[in-house]
């Protein structure tokens, strides 16, 4: 195998994701900002009167890192799911990609990098808005550590989205998958409350959820500047697992 073919497709696919996203960016941005801002107003303003602080930080500050992380992960999922759904079922671009001299993994990697960049831009936007209204104090020096945590999160959520988008021909299925799998993961992962508040019997399970690693780990990094290594390990484990699964599924679907 000539080295020249190696990873040739990654950049064009990532660029395509960004160009697609640039179309209708105003609507997309409004949609992206609306959800975390609504959560912040509903939970932050609504519950902060009852919950003064969590683990030594004000509830609104506790909530903010989770909402930024949620935005990034949901954007990664949305980009992967809708991007691949469009490419496979609507525009049939996958039929074009499979006659190009690129590897299947290039397409998945391009989607992941494109999804990560889109998610990062939107997450930054949400972070800037929330920091204006939230009493949060961010450990800026720990940002590289935060990216090292959310990048595998983006791999996981883009790959999960890609698997759904590649497998199901109806757009309704994408919304269903979000309701059935993603929403419970978000709520159980300590987005709105610390997982220490959960009943003892569920804690061992929740502790190994990738969303727990993302929300609890992200909160630790942004608010306190450090992370429990277990969270980083969990994120990378699920990222690699989902990448392998998405690549396998993608190859299967392309050979149909």
């Amino acid at each position, binding site marked *: *195998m*000539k080295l*020249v*073919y190696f990873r*040739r*497709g990654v*950049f*064009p696919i990532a*660029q*395509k994701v960004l*160009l*697609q996203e640039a*179309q209708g960016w105003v609507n997309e941005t409004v949609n992206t900002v609306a959800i975390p801002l609504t959560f912040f107003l509903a939970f932050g303003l609504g519950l902060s009167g009852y919950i003064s602080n969590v683990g030594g930080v004000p509830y609104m500050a506790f909530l903010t890192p989770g909402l930024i992380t949620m935005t990034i992960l949901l954007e990664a999922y949305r980009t992967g799911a809708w991007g691949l759904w*469009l*490419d496979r079922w609507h*525009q*049939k*671009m996958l*039929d*074009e*990609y*499979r*006659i*190009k*001299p*690129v*590897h299947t993994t290039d397409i998945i990697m391009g989607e992941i990098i494109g999804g990560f960049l889109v998610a990062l831009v939107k997450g930054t936007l949400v972070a800037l808005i929330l920091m204006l209204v939230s009493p949060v104090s961010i450990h800026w020096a720990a940002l590289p550590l935060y990216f090292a945590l959310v990048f595998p999160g983006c791999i996981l959520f883009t790959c999960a989205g890609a698997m759904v988008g590649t497998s199901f021909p109806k757009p309704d299925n994408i919304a269903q998958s979000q309701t059935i799998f993603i929403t419970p993961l978000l709520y159980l992962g300590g987005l709105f409350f610390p997982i220490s508040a959960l009943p003892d019997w569920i804690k061992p399970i929740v502790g190994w959820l990738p969303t727990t690693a993302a929300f609890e780990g992200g909160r630790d990094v942004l608010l306190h500047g450090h992370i429990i290594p277990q969270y980083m390990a969990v994120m990378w484990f699920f990222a690699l697992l989902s990448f392998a699964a998405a690549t396998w599924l993608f190859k299967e679907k392309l*050979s149909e």
Partner: protein
Amino acid sequence: MQQQEQSATGIAIEARQLKKQFKGRGEPVQALNGVSFSVQRENVFAILGPNGAGKTTLLRILTTVMRPSSGQAWIEGFEIGRQNIQIRQLIGIVAQDNYFDRYLTVWQNLALHAQMHGMEKPVYEPRIRELLEKVELYDRRNDFMENFSGGMQRRVALIRALIHQPRILFLDEPTTGLDPSARREIWETIQELKHRTTVILTTHYMEEADRLSDRIMILNHGEVVMTGTAQELKQRISPPETYELFLSTPTAAAYRQKLASWIRDPDIADQSLLRFRLNHPDLLATLVAQVAPADLKSIGLAQADLETVYLTAAGQGVPFSGLLAESKEAGV
């Protein structure tokens, strides 16, 4: 080894005993059943056959999209299934349907293709510009594909297949659904390409195959029925010693009666054309002498057209010879 062999013999494509079986819920379908052929470099090779004959399956195998159930094929010496990435670098494809990213402009769609073929910006930009200018679409490079007509989309699809200057171009019914002028533009492009690119063409238009191709292969029920040049195929099914008398006036009926004593039931193809078989060519001068010089336009050997060849090969037509009259033994 195969690469060296093919290179030496000037063969661009070689297929040996290709078989493809589709297993569904019902009976398995044998789409290809031992197809073997070879294509010389820089030739236009047309694949004809009725719907379901296996043309698209064959093209999908040759373009590495699908694996054969058995058999082998090589593209410029690279084996399908084993060296797909190398093969994809050498081929360009215009599929039956035009698939583009509707969220990208024409230019962005073409640039995406070029980048996936490993072309650098300084190389692909002038190339795309040149090709778009050639088909007068450069001014519309920033339009989205959904604003283009079917003919324009097909032209962009052809450009996309040519950006990386493929050695082999696969065209799957490239002119289906196009108006005559758009069709002619595509034909001109294929004719221009002919001397530097091997073109594999599937079509339902016999005129297209006749006009463009160097060799033709007719498939039916997943098997090769005939292969050869258009001329060879026509001759193969044309009956021997069959003549056509072209008259300058619509007097075929009158001459049919007049010649009745020499030939049995000559066929009137139209009012100015009599077609008949002579078992003894010496009789031709006698027959011609019966026709007034003013009425005689020309006389020639009859030949089946490609459509008749196709219908006969596909088992859908009346054999050409069945239409013909023969000279009477008694008249000789």
